[in-house]
Protein backbone atom coordinates (compact mmCIF):
# COMPACT_ATOMS: atom_id res chain seq x y z
CA UNK A 1 0.00 0.00 0.00
CA UNK A 2 1.66 3.20 -1.11
CA UNK A 3 1.84 6.31 1.01
CA UNK A 4 0.00 8.14 -1.71
CA UNK A 5 -3.00 5.88 -1.56
CA UNK A 6 -2.91 5.98 2.20
CA UNK A 7 -2.97 9.76 1.99
CA UNK A 8 -5.99 9.61 -0.30
CA UNK A 9 -7.75 7.27 2.08
CA UNK A 10 -7.07 9.65 4.91
CA UNK A 11 -8.50 12.53 2.88
CA UNK A 12 -11.55 10.45 2.14
CA UNK A 13 -12.11 9.79 5.81
CA UNK A 14 -11.89 13.51 6.51
CA UNK A 15 -14.29 14.31 3.70
CA UNK A 16 -11.54 16.15 1.91
CA UNK A 17 -10.95 13.79 -0.97
CA UNK A 18 -11.57 15.01 -4.48
CA UNK A 19 -13.24 12.97 -7.16
CA UNK A 20 -9.94 11.65 -8.45
CA UNK A 21 -8.83 10.42 -5.05
CA UNK A 22 -12.17 8.75 -4.46
CA UNK A 23 -11.84 6.86 -7.71
CA UNK A 24 -8.25 5.96 -6.94
CA UNK A 25 -9.18 4.56 -3.53
CA UNK A 26 -12.14 2.62 -4.86
CA UNK A 27 -10.04 1.14 -7.63
CA UNK A 28 -7.21 0.28 -5.28
CA UNK A 29 -9.68 -1.30 -2.83
CA UNK A 30 -10.77 -3.66 -5.53
CA UNK A 31 -7.22 -4.69 -6.19
CA UNK A 32 -5.74 -4.72 -2.71
CA UNK A 33 -7.57 -6.39 0.11
CA UNK A 34 -5.10 -4.77 2.44
CA UNK A 35 -6.39 -1.33 1.58
CA UNK A 36 -10.00 -2.37 2.04
CA UNK A 37 -9.11 -3.75 5.45
CA UNK A 38 -7.34 -0.54 6.26
CA UNK A 39 -10.38 1.50 5.28
CA UNK A 40 -12.52 -0.73 7.44
CA UNK A 41 -10.20 -0.18 10.37
CA UNK A 42 -10.27 3.59 9.92
CA UNK A 43 -14.02 3.41 10.27
CA UNK A 44 -13.66 1.26 13.33
CA UNK A 45 -11.35 3.82 14.84
CA UNK A 46 -13.78 6.57 14.07
CA UNK A 47 -16.51 4.57 15.78
CA UNK A 48 -14.30 4.26 18.83
CA UNK A 49 -13.62 7.99 18.84
CA UNK A 50 -17.32 8.71 18.53
CA UNK A 51 -18.15 6.43 21.43
CA UNK A 52 -20.00 3.97 19.28
CA UNK A 53 -18.23 1.21 21.13
CA UNK A 54 -21.42 -0.41 22.32
CA UNK A 55 -22.02 -1.94 18.95
CA UNK A 56 -21.69 -5.67 19.21
CA UNK A 57 -20.06 -5.71 15.75
CA UNK A 58 -16.86 -4.63 17.42
CA UNK A 59 -16.63 -7.92 19.22
CA UNK A 60 -17.43 -9.89 16.13
CA UNK A 61 -14.87 -7.98 14.19
CA UNK A 62 -12.14 -8.35 16.76
CA UNK A 63 -12.80 -12.05 16.98
CA UNK A 64 -12.42 -12.38 13.26
CA UNK A 65 -9.26 -10.33 13.18
CA UNK A 66 -7.77 -12.29 16.04
CA UNK A 67 -8.49 -15.42 14.12
CA UNK A 68 -6.88 -13.97 11.02
CA UNK A 69 -3.79 -13.04 12.96
CA UNK A 70 -3.60 -16.45 14.56
CA UNK A 71 -3.58 -17.93 11.11
CA UNK A 72 -0.80 -15.67 9.94
CA UNK A 73 2.63 -17.15 9.23
CA UNK A 74 5.09 -17.08 12.11
CA UNK A 75 6.79 -13.75 12.77
CA UNK A 76 9.76 -13.00 10.62
CA UNK A 77 12.06 -12.02 13.45
CA UNK A 78 13.41 -14.07 16.29
CA UNK A 79 11.05 -14.95 19.00
CA UNK A 80 11.82 -13.61 22.40
CA UNK A 81 13.41 -16.57 24.11
CA UNK A 82 12.65 -15.77 27.72
CA UNK A 83 9.89 -13.35 28.31
CA UNK A 84 10.85 -12.78 31.91
CA UNK A 85 14.23 -11.35 30.98
CA UNK A 86 12.91 -8.67 28.72
CA UNK A 87 12.90 -5.30 30.40
CA UNK A 88 9.88 -3.10 29.96
CA UNK A 89 12.10 -0.53 28.31
CA UNK A 90 13.05 -2.89 25.55
CA UNK A 91 9.42 -3.80 25.08
CA UNK A 92 8.62 -0.19 24.52
CA UNK A 93 11.52 0.12 22.19
CA UNK A 94 10.30 -2.79 20.15
CA UNK A 95 6.78 -1.62 20.42
CA UNK A 96 7.94 1.74 19.22
CA UNK A 97 8.95 0.31 15.91
CA UNK A 98 5.37 -0.54 15.10
CA UNK A 99 4.00 2.42 16.92
CA UNK A 100 6.11 4.55 14.64
CA UNK A 101 4.63 3.12 11.53
CA UNK A 102 1.24 2.65 12.99
CA UNK A 103 0.73 5.76 15.02
CA UNK A 104 -2.97 5.48 14.38
CA UNK A 105 -3.01 2.07 15.93
CA UNK A 106 -1.63 3.50 19.10
CA UNK A 107 -4.06 6.36 19.05
CA UNK A 108 -6.91 3.91 18.81
CA UNK A 109 -5.68 2.04 21.84
CA UNK A 110 -5.28 5.35 23.61
CA UNK A 111 -8.71 6.47 22.52
CA UNK A 112 -10.22 3.32 23.87
CA UNK A 113 -8.54 3.92 27.20
CA UNK A 114 -9.55 7.55 27.30
CA UNK A 115 -13.09 7.08 26.09
CA UNK A 116 -13.93 4.25 28.41
CA UNK A 117 -15.88 6.10 31.09
CA UNK A 118 -16.07 4.54 34.52
CA UNK A 119 -13.56 1.98 33.49
CA UNK A 120 -12.58 -0.25 36.36
CA UNK A 121 -9.33 -1.26 34.78
CA UNK A 122 -6.63 1.35 35.21
CA UNK A 123 -4.92 2.59 32.05
CA UNK A 124 -1.60 1.20 33.22
CA UNK A 125 -3.02 -2.30 33.30
CA UNK A 126 -4.34 -1.85 29.80
CA UNK A 127 -1.06 -0.42 28.59
CA UNK A 128 0.64 -3.46 30.02
CA UNK A 129 -1.76 -5.66 28.19
CA UNK A 130 -1.11 -3.88 24.96
CA UNK A 131 2.62 -4.41 25.18
CA UNK A 132 2.54 -7.74 26.93
CA UNK A 133 5.14 -10.18 25.56
CA UNK A 134 2.50 -12.37 24.06
CA UNK A 135 1.12 -9.55 22.01
CA UNK A 136 4.56 -8.42 21.01
CA UNK A 137 5.40 -11.86 19.76
CA UNK A 138 2.48 -11.69 17.47
CA UNK A 139 2.74 -8.11 16.45
CA UNK A 140 6.46 -7.58 16.14
CA UNK A 141 6.70 -8.59 12.50
CA UNK A 142 5.59 -5.01 12.05
CA UNK A 143 2.87 -4.69 9.55
CA UNK A 144 1.97 -1.30 10.80
CA UNK A 145 -1.72 -0.75 11.13
CA UNK A 146 -2.52 -4.39 11.05
CA UNK A 147 -1.76 -4.59 14.71
CA UNK A 148 -4.27 -2.08 15.87
CA UNK A 149 -7.18 -4.47 16.24
CA UNK A 150 -5.29 -6.39 18.85
CA UNK A 151 -4.98 -3.26 20.89
CA UNK A 152 -8.70 -2.69 20.61
CA UNK A 153 -9.58 -6.22 21.36
CA UNK A 154 -7.36 -6.38 24.39
CA UNK A 155 -8.69 -3.21 25.84
CA UNK A 156 -12.33 -3.81 25.19
CA UNK A 157 -12.17 -7.37 26.39
CA UNK A 158 -10.23 -6.36 29.43
CA UNK A 159 -12.10 -3.49 30.89
CA UNK A 160 -15.47 -2.74 29.43
CA UNK A 161 -17.68 -5.47 30.88
CA UNK A 162 -19.23 -3.16 33.44
CA UNK A 163 -20.17 -0.71 30.71
CA UNK A 164 -21.84 -3.36 28.68
CA UNK A 165 -23.83 -4.53 31.67
CA UNK A 166 -24.86 -0.96 32.34
CA UNK A 167 -26.01 -0.44 28.77
CA UNK A 168 -27.82 -3.79 28.82
CA UNK A 169 -29.61 -2.94 32.05
CA UNK A 170 -30.84 0.31 30.63
CA UNK A 171 -32.02 -1.36 27.49
CA UNK A 172 -33.73 -4.06 29.50
CA UNK A 173 -35.46 -1.49 31.67
CA UNK A 174 -36.68 0.43 28.63
CA UNK A 175 -37.99 -2.71 26.98
CA UNK A 176 -39.78 -3.74 30.13
CA UNK A 177 -41.43 -0.33 30.29
CA UNK A 178 -42.43 -0.51 26.65
CA UNK A 179 -44.01 -3.89 27.26
CA UNK A 180 -46.46 -2.27 29.67
CA UNK A 181 -47.71 0.04 26.93
CA UNK A 182 -47.80 -2.76 24.37
CA UNK A 183 -49.83 -4.89 26.76
CA UNK A 184 -52.42 -2.18 27.39
CA UNK A 185 -52.65 -1.48 23.70
CA UNK A 186 -53.01 -5.17 22.81
CA UNK A 187 -55.88 -5.58 25.27
CA UNK A 188 -57.61 -2.66 23.63
CA UNK A 189 -57.04 -4.19 20.19
CA UNK A 190 -58.24 -7.62 21.32
CA UNK A 191 -61.47 -6.06 22.56
CA UNK A 192 -61.98 -3.66 19.68
CA UNK A 193 -60.01 -4.78 16.69
CA UNK A 194 -61.08 -6.90 13.77
CA UNK A 195 -59.02 -9.93 14.76
CA UNK A 196 -60.65 -11.02 18.01
CA UNK A 197 -58.16 -12.30 20.57
CA UNK A 198 -55.50 -12.94 17.92
CA UNK A 199 -53.55 -9.74 18.61
CA UNK A 200 -52.84 -10.96 22.13
CA UNK A 201 -50.41 -13.37 20.47
CA UNK A 202 -48.26 -10.32 19.79
CA UNK A 203 -47.75 -9.98 23.51
CA UNK A 204 -46.14 -13.42 23.51
CA UNK A 205 -43.58 -12.02 21.10
CA UNK A 206 -42.87 -9.01 23.28
CA UNK A 207 -42.42 -11.24 26.27
CA UNK A 208 -40.26 -13.74 24.47
CA UNK A 209 -38.07 -10.84 23.46
CA UNK A 210 -37.89 -9.84 27.10
CA UNK A 211 -37.18 -13.35 28.36
CA UNK A 212 -34.34 -13.74 25.92
CA UNK A 213 -32.26 -11.17 27.80
Amino acid at each position, binding site marked *: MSDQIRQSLSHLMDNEADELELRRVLKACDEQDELADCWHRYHLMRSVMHKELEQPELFDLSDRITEAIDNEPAPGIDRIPDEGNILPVSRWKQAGSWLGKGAIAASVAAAVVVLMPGNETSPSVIAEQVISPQVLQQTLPVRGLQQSPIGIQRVSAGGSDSNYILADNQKLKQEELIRG*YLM*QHSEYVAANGSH*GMMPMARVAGYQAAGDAH
Partner: protein
Amino acid sequence: MCRSFTLGLLLLAMFISVPGRAAVTADQWLVRFSEAMHSYHYNGVLVYSREGQLDTVELSHDVNEMGEQSRLSYLDGLPREFLQHGDQIVHKISGETVASDRIHGRNPVGRFSGGLEQVKKYYQLQLKGQGRVVGRPAVIVEITPRDNQRLGYRLWLDKESALLLKSVTLDPLSRELETFQFTSFNFVRRDTPLKKEHQQQAPADGASLPWLPEGFDVYLVKDSVPVSENHLANMFGLSDGVSTFSVFIEPLRNDSLKEGVHQYGATVVVVRMVTRNNTARVVTVVGEIPLHTARKVAAAF
Protein backbone atom coordinates in the same frame (compact mmCIF):
# COMPACT_ATOMS: atom_id res chain seq x y z
CA MET B 1 -70.87 -24.98 -24.32
CA CYS B 2 -74.02 -26.69 -23.24
CA ARG B 3 -72.15 -28.46 -20.49
CA SER B 4 -70.63 -25.35 -19.06
CA PHE B 5 -74.05 -23.72 -19.14
CA THR B 6 -75.51 -26.57 -17.13
CA LEU B 7 -72.62 -26.35 -14.74
CA GLY B 8 -73.23 -22.65 -14.37
CA LEU B 9 -76.88 -23.28 -13.65
CA LEU B 10 -75.95 -25.91 -11.13
CA LEU B 11 -73.59 -23.52 -9.36
CA LEU B 12 -76.23 -20.82 -9.38
CA ALA B 13 -78.73 -23.26 -7.94
CA MET B 14 -76.27 -24.12 -5.19
CA PHE B 15 -75.87 -20.49 -4.27
CA ILE B 16 -79.58 -19.97 -4.20
CA SER B 17 -80.20 -23.07 -2.13
CA VAL B 18 -77.98 -21.86 0.72
CA PRO B 19 -78.86 -18.18 0.83
CA GLY B 20 -77.43 -17.22 4.20
CA ARG B 21 -74.09 -18.82 3.51
CA ALA B 22 -73.26 -17.72 0.06
CA ALA B 23 -70.85 -14.88 -0.17
CA VAL B 24 -69.50 -13.73 -3.47
CA THR B 25 -67.97 -10.35 -2.80
CA ALA B 26 -65.26 -9.28 -0.39
CA ASP B 27 -67.85 -7.20 1.47
CA GLN B 28 -70.07 -10.21 1.95
CA TRP B 29 -67.20 -12.31 3.16
CA LEU B 30 -66.30 -9.71 5.76
CA VAL B 31 -69.88 -9.54 6.96
CA ARG B 32 -69.94 -13.31 7.21
CA PHE B 33 -66.64 -13.22 9.07
CA SER B 34 -67.88 -10.80 11.71
CA GLU B 35 -71.06 -12.84 12.14
CA ALA B 36 -69.08 -16.06 12.40
CA MET B 37 -67.33 -14.76 15.47
CA HIS B 38 -70.70 -14.89 17.23
CA SER B 39 -71.84 -18.19 15.77
CA TYR B 40 -68.99 -20.60 16.44
CA HIS B 41 -66.97 -22.11 19.19
CA TYR B 42 -63.49 -22.43 17.85
CA ASN B 43 -60.12 -23.41 19.14
CA GLY B 44 -56.72 -24.18 17.75
CA VAL B 45 -53.03 -23.56 17.86
CA LEU B 46 -52.07 -20.19 16.50
CA VAL B 47 -48.60 -19.28 15.30
CA TYR B 48 -47.47 -15.67 15.31
CA SER B 49 -44.39 -14.65 13.39
CA ARG B 50 -42.58 -11.39 12.88
CA GLU B 51 -39.00 -10.60 11.87
CA GLY B 52 -37.88 -14.18 12.09
CA GLN B 53 -39.39 -14.63 15.52
CA LEU B 54 -42.00 -17.32 16.04
CA ASP B 55 -44.42 -17.75 18.93
CA THR B 56 -47.12 -20.30 19.49
CA VAL B 57 -50.33 -19.80 21.44
CA GLU B 58 -53.38 -21.91 22.00
CA LEU B 59 -56.57 -20.01 21.39
CA SER B 60 -60.13 -20.93 22.19
CA HIS B 61 -63.16 -18.76 21.76
CA ASP B 62 -66.82 -19.02 22.56
CA VAL B 63 -69.72 -16.65 22.72
CA ASN B 64 -72.60 -17.36 25.06
CA GLU B 65 -75.21 -15.48 27.01
CA MET B 66 -72.50 -14.19 29.31
CA GLY B 67 -70.72 -12.57 26.43
CA GLU B 68 -67.45 -13.60 24.83
CA GLN B 69 -65.28 -16.19 26.46
CA SER B 70 -61.75 -16.50 25.22
CA ARG B 71 -58.69 -18.21 26.44
CA LEU B 72 -55.25 -17.67 25.05
CA SER B 73 -52.30 -19.52 26.50
CA TYR B 74 -48.69 -19.28 25.46
CA LEU B 75 -47.09 -22.56 24.57
CA ASP B 76 -43.54 -21.16 24.56
CA GLY B 77 -41.61 -19.78 27.51
CA LEU B 78 -43.35 -18.98 30.77
CA PRO B 79 -46.82 -20.51 30.99
CA ARG B 80 -48.90 -17.36 30.62
CA GLU B 81 -52.60 -17.10 29.98
CA PHE B 82 -55.10 -14.47 29.02
CA LEU B 83 -58.72 -15.13 29.85
CA GLN B 84 -61.53 -13.00 28.63
CA HIS B 85 -64.90 -13.36 30.28
CA GLY B 86 -67.39 -10.89 28.90
CA ASP B 87 -65.79 -7.54 29.45
CA GLN B 88 -63.24 -8.76 31.95
CA ILE B 89 -59.72 -9.67 30.91
CA VAL B 90 -57.44 -11.64 33.23
CA HIS B 91 -53.72 -12.21 32.84
CA LYS B 92 -52.23 -15.25 34.55
CA ILE B 93 -48.64 -16.40 34.85
CA SER B 94 -48.07 -20.03 35.85
CA GLY B 95 -51.69 -20.22 36.97
CA GLU B 96 -51.55 -17.15 39.21
CA THR B 97 -53.54 -14.07 38.36
CA VAL B 98 -51.23 -11.11 37.89
CA ALA B 99 -53.63 -8.62 36.43
CA SER B 100 -57.31 -8.25 35.94
CA ASP B 101 -58.85 -5.51 33.97
CA ARG B 102 -62.22 -4.39 32.74
CA ILE B 103 -62.36 -3.80 29.02
CA HIS B 104 -63.71 -0.43 28.16
CA GLY B 105 -64.85 1.12 24.97
CA ARG B 106 -66.02 -2.01 23.23
CA ASN B 107 -66.27 -0.98 19.66
CA PRO B 108 -68.23 -3.21 17.31
CA VAL B 109 -67.28 -0.92 14.45
CA GLY B 110 -63.81 -2.34 14.81
CA ARG B 111 -65.24 -5.74 14.01
CA PHE B 112 -66.41 -4.58 10.59
CA SER B 113 -70.04 -5.29 11.44
CA GLY B 114 -72.32 -2.43 10.57
CA GLY B 115 -69.35 -0.23 9.88
CA LEU B 116 -68.53 -1.56 6.47
CA GLU B 117 -69.30 1.74 4.77
CA GLN B 118 -66.87 3.50 7.08
CA VAL B 119 -64.27 0.81 6.44
CA LYS B 120 -64.70 1.12 2.68
CA LYS B 121 -64.05 4.84 2.84
CA TYR B 122 -60.48 4.20 3.88
CA TYR B 123 -59.82 0.71 2.56
CA GLN B 124 -60.38 -1.14 -0.65
CA LEU B 125 -61.82 -4.63 -0.20
CA GLN B 126 -60.90 -7.25 -2.74
CA LEU B 127 -61.18 -10.97 -3.18
CA LYS B 128 -57.75 -12.35 -4.00
CA GLY B 129 -58.61 -15.85 -4.98
CA GLN B 130 -58.55 -19.00 -2.95
CA GLY B 131 -56.05 -20.76 -0.79
CA ARG B 132 -55.63 -23.51 1.69
CA VAL B 133 -54.75 -23.08 5.34
CA VAL B 134 -54.64 -25.80 8.06
CA GLY B 135 -55.81 -28.24 5.43
CA ARG B 136 -58.95 -26.22 4.83
CA PRO B 137 -60.04 -24.37 1.70
CA ALA B 138 -60.07 -20.64 2.25
CA VAL B 139 -60.89 -17.44 0.42
CA ILE B 140 -58.40 -14.63 0.48
CA VAL B 141 -59.73 -11.16 1.23
CA GLU B 142 -57.41 -8.23 0.96
CA ILE B 143 -58.03 -5.01 2.84
CA THR B 144 -55.88 -2.38 1.15
CA PRO B 145 -55.58 1.14 2.57
CA ARG B 146 -56.57 3.95 0.22
CA ASP B 147 -53.90 6.24 1.65
CA ASN B 148 -50.57 5.71 3.40
CA GLN B 149 -51.82 6.45 6.90
CA ARG B 150 -52.80 2.87 7.76
CA LEU B 151 -51.72 -0.72 7.29
CA GLY B 152 -53.30 -3.35 5.08
CA TYR B 153 -54.40 -6.88 5.86
CA ARG B 154 -54.67 -10.08 3.89
CA LEU B 155 -57.16 -12.47 5.45
CA TRP B 156 -57.68 -16.16 4.79
CA LEU B 157 -61.27 -16.96 5.73
CA ASP B 158 -62.45 -20.52 6.11
CA LYS B 159 -64.75 -21.28 3.20
CA GLU B 160 -67.20 -23.22 5.29
CA SER B 161 -67.44 -21.08 8.43
CA ALA B 162 -65.89 -17.74 7.32
CA LEU B 163 -63.73 -17.86 10.43
CA LEU B 164 -60.29 -16.28 10.24
CA LEU B 165 -57.58 -18.89 9.62
CA LYS B 166 -54.68 -16.69 8.70
CA SER B 167 -53.90 -13.01 8.63
CA VAL B 168 -50.94 -11.11 7.25
CA THR B 169 -50.36 -7.46 8.11
CA LEU B 170 -48.96 -5.40 5.24
CA ASP B 171 -47.24 -2.04 5.22
CA PRO B 172 -48.26 0.62 2.67
CA LEU B 173 -45.84 -0.94 0.19
CA SER B 174 -47.47 -4.35 0.66
CA ARG B 175 -44.50 -5.81 2.52
CA GLU B 176 -45.40 -8.42 5.09
CA LEU B 177 -44.87 -7.22 8.65
CA GLU B 178 -46.34 -10.07 10.65
CA THR B 179 -48.39 -13.22 10.24
CA PHE B 180 -50.99 -14.94 12.39
CA GLN B 181 -51.83 -18.44 11.30
CA PHE B 182 -53.65 -21.38 12.77
CA THR B 183 -51.75 -24.64 12.52
CA SER B 184 -54.58 -26.67 13.99
CA PHE B 185 -58.18 -25.59 13.99
CA ASN B 186 -61.53 -26.95 15.19
CA PHE B 187 -64.90 -25.30 15.26
CA VAL B 188 -68.44 -26.12 16.26
CA ARG B 189 -71.42 -24.18 15.06
CA ARG B 190 -73.58 -22.85 17.88
CA ASP B 191 -77.15 -24.08 17.65
CA THR B 192 -78.66 -20.75 18.49
CA PRO B 193 -76.46 -18.00 17.23
CA LEU B 194 -76.29 -15.16 19.66
CA LYS B 195 -77.77 -11.90 18.55
CA LYS B 196 -75.18 -9.50 17.36
CA GLU B 197 -74.61 -6.48 19.51
CA HIS B 198 -76.08 -3.94 17.20
CA GLN B 199 -75.63 -0.91 19.33
CA GLN B 200 -72.67 0.88 17.94
CA GLN B 201 -70.54 2.81 20.26
CA ALA B 202 -70.15 6.34 19.09
CA PRO B 203 -66.77 8.00 19.19
CA ALA B 204 -66.05 9.39 22.64
CA ASP B 205 -67.51 12.85 23.11
CA GLY B 206 -65.25 15.83 23.50
CA ALA B 207 -62.08 13.79 23.47
CA SER B 208 -59.71 14.77 20.75
CA LEU B 209 -56.04 14.70 20.02
CA PRO B 210 -54.08 17.52 18.35
CA TRP B 211 -53.78 15.58 15.11
CA LEU B 212 -55.29 12.33 13.91
CA PRO B 213 -55.01 10.66 10.54
CA GLU B 214 -58.24 10.90 8.60
CA GLY B 215 -60.84 8.33 9.58
CA PHE B 216 -59.52 7.65 13.05
CA ASP B 217 -61.76 8.46 15.99
CA VAL B 218 -61.26 8.30 19.72
CA TYR B 219 -63.20 5.30 21.02
CA LEU B 220 -61.66 4.99 24.44
CA VAL B 221 -60.59 7.49 27.04
CA LYS B 222 -59.24 5.97 30.19
CA ASP B 223 -57.48 7.73 33.04
CA SER B 224 -54.69 6.28 35.15
CA VAL B 225 -53.97 3.14 33.19
CA PRO B 226 -51.17 1.13 34.81
CA VAL B 227 -48.37 0.79 32.26
CA SER B 228 -45.84 -0.55 34.74
CA GLU B 229 -45.66 -1.29 38.46
CA ASN B 230 -45.50 2.37 39.35
CA HIS B 231 -46.44 4.24 36.21
CA LEU B 232 -49.90 5.49 35.40
CA ALA B 233 -50.86 7.09 32.12
CA ASN B 234 -53.98 8.47 30.51
CA MET B 235 -54.90 6.35 27.54
CA PHE B 236 -56.74 7.12 24.33
CA GLY B 237 -57.82 4.29 22.07
CA LEU B 238 -58.27 5.07 18.39
CA SER B 239 -59.72 3.15 15.50
CA ASP B 240 -60.69 3.63 11.88
CA GLY B 241 -62.75 0.45 11.88
CA VAL B 242 -59.86 -1.82 10.98
CA SER B 243 -56.60 -0.42 12.33
CA THR B 244 -56.12 0.60 15.91
CA PHE B 245 -53.60 2.55 17.91
CA SER B 246 -53.31 3.93 21.41
CA VAL B 247 -51.90 7.16 22.79
CA PHE B 248 -50.60 7.37 26.36
CA ILE B 249 -49.95 10.68 28.09
CA GLU B 250 -48.25 11.01 31.46
CA PRO B 251 -46.08 13.46 33.41
CA LEU B 252 -42.35 13.17 32.79
CA ARG B 253 -40.44 11.28 35.47
CA ASN B 254 -36.87 10.18 35.99
CA ASP B 255 -37.65 6.64 34.96
CA SER B 256 -39.97 7.50 32.10
CA LEU B 257 -39.40 5.98 28.70
CA LYS B 258 -36.70 7.74 26.75
CA GLU B 259 -37.62 9.56 23.57
CA GLY B 260 -37.30 7.31 20.60
CA VAL B 261 -38.87 4.94 18.15
CA HIS B 262 -39.31 1.19 18.41
CA GLN B 263 -40.81 -1.33 16.05
CA TYR B 264 -42.03 -4.85 16.70
CA GLY B 265 -43.45 -6.44 13.59
CA ALA B 266 -46.45 -4.31 12.68
CA THR B 267 -46.47 -2.48 15.99
CA VAL B 268 -44.66 0.82 16.30
CA VAL B 269 -43.89 2.72 19.49
CA VAL B 270 -43.05 6.43 19.33
CA VAL B 271 -42.06 8.17 22.55
CA ARG B 272 -41.88 11.95 22.68
CA MET B 273 -41.34 14.45 25.47
CA VAL B 274 -43.48 17.56 25.35
CA THR B 275 -42.82 20.62 27.46
CA ARG B 276 -45.49 23.25 27.78
CA ASN B 277 -46.08 25.84 30.53
CA ASN B 278 -43.14 24.46 32.47
CA THR B 279 -44.59 20.99 32.73
CA ALA B 280 -43.07 18.13 30.84
CA ARG B 281 -45.18 15.24 29.67
CA VAL B 282 -44.37 12.05 27.88
CA VAL B 283 -46.51 11.10 24.88
CA THR B 284 -46.33 7.48 23.77
CA VAL B 285 -48.03 6.37 20.57
CA VAL B 286 -48.42 2.59 20.25
CA GLY B 287 -50.14 0.75 17.48
CA GLU B 288 -50.36 -0.99 14.17
CA ILE B 289 -49.97 2.04 11.95
CA PRO B 290 -47.15 3.23 9.70
CA LEU B 291 -44.23 4.77 11.55
CA HIS B 292 -44.59 8.15 9.88
CA THR B 293 -48.21 8.33 10.96
CA ALA B 294 -47.33 7.51 14.57
CA ARG B 295 -44.58 10.13 14.48
CA LYS B 296 -47.00 12.74 13.20
CA VAL B 297 -49.55 11.93 15.91
CA ALA B 298 -46.83 12.34 18.56
CA ALA B 299 -45.31 15.43 16.96
CA ALA B 300 -48.62 17.29 17.02
CA PHE B 301 -48.63 17.51 20.82
